[in-house]
């Protein structure tokens, strides 16, 4: 079992198994969470990971900038360690951006079309 702390819900804590998506594990314990597609494609259930590790390999909604900003897709994310999360639309301050005012860099696109970013020591990171 791992412990999930909801930072913007008075630091309330919940024990989860990590075997099912966090959306299901938390909703089963009475946490009111937004959601839509339930397959990791639509971003409605996005939350912000403040601390900890999460497996969200099957999400396809987030671009690399959103991932770098800590967003996780709860309907497919499983906890690997104890985590601290901000949930709900209050956590979406950096999730949505006007695409004309604030364009993405090539490495910030979704994983399937992003180009590798040059790093100062000549290595690439995706």
């Amino acid at each position, binding site marked *: 079992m791992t412990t999930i702390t909801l930072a913007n819900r008075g630091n309330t804590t919940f024990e989860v198994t990590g075997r099912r998506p966090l959306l299901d594990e938390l909703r089963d314990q009475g946490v009111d969470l*937004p959601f839509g597609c339930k397959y990791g494609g639509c971003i*409605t259930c996005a939350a912000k990971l403040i601390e900890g590790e999460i497996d969200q390999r099957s999400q396809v909604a987030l671009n690399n900038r959103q991932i770098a900003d800590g967003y996780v897709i709860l309907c497919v994310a499983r906890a690997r360690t104890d985590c601290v999360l901000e949930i*709900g639309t209050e956590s979406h301050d950096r999730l949505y951006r006007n695409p004309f005012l604030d364009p*993405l860099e090539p490495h910030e696109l979704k994983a399937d079309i992003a180009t590798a970013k040059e790093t100062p020591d000549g290595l690439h990171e995706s």
Partner: protein
Amino acid sequence: MECCGPGYASPSEAMKAPREEILYTIAIYTGTGIQKPDYLCTIDADPASPTYAQVIHRLEMPNIGDELHHMGWNACSSCFDDGSMSRSYLLVPGVRSSNIYIVDTATDPRAPRLHKTIQGADIKSKTDLSAPHTVHCLGSEIIISMLGNAKGEAPGGYLHLDRDFEILGRWENSMGDIPFGYDFWYQPRHNVMASSEWAAPNTFMPGFDLEEVGHLKYGRRIHLWDFEKKEPKQTFYLGEDGLIPLEVRFHHDPDSTHGFCGAALSSNIIHWWQDGSGDWQWEKIIDVDNEPHPEWPIPVPGVITVILLSMDDRFLYFCNWLHGDIRQYDISDPHNPKLTGQVWMGGLLGKAPEVNGLQITGGPQMIQLSLDGKRLYVTTSLFSTWDNQFYPEIRTNGGCMLMVNCDTENGGMEIDPDFAVDFGKEPNGPSRCHETRYPGGDCTSDIWL
């Protein structure tokens, strides 16, 4: 005509129908932070009524997070000769959940009730389809464009339902080389259907990344289908002139081959027709210029998110959701449209931030025209995630509906000063309004065989 089924014998008969007294409009909480179901509003549109221009009933769906979007009738004028059919049910799909709600509007038209739910999970397991969009009845049956497979990948296909709303399977025999789906309309006397392209659900649902257009993740084609063979037969590659082609409308006149589509990002109107030698041609007939914005590094595109034809095929209406204007063009000559009316509400250019005492958040978006062509109802929300990107204040302000009076003699439009529905003041908090239908049929539903 009492012997007959639903709808009207012809578009000109439809124009003589009684005035609409109530409207059905979608309102959503998905993506707003309010943990309530999306719902179907009944709005009083009778000027003689004490509750005129108010929401008089709300039918909440049984789930949250559906994102109700577009709707369609179980029957239209395509079953006018079928006395066993009636326009009694509104099909209300949820784009995100893939649930499809069948709403009974006949038992009590002012207070519609849920008749049946087609579960998104059933649709996915039986047809490998998701993300329902456009609903058209097909004689006594129904087809719905589905924008993705069960995993949200393009191109999806068409869900086929029988008259009792049981899943028959997929309607199409082949998607050919079509990369994306979105809207469709058919013109049976010419055995043709036209379909347009948004993007894969996994691309458009999380929001709009402009860069993905260049990576070919968004559509730029219109497809013509052999309607009887249920397979595509010709593609118009529109290129830069046709980025993100959305709403597709054929002329209401069933003998006509003329059709129109709004390319949202290019902000162009595309027109197609069959020429004298039987070949299908297309051209760009309207090009909305980008407008400078004081704070933007690049000019703002209009973003034409909807188009609509009056029942007599004389006027084309469309909205520039980012600019904030609604336009009326006389398309009596479809090759040479003439701008005859323009009004402003909301938008990013600051031309009309307040109308009828209402602060307008968002821009003009979905429109529905009365059958007689005189009243155009307009709502402001596009799609929850895209709203959140372009008009983030809509989360606290909600959407709104206005009515535009249209001059059908000389052309021209004027926002009605006495009609405003403020969805910012809904009982459960600010919601966002989207598509509108009328119980007696409307200008985006009926097709004549």
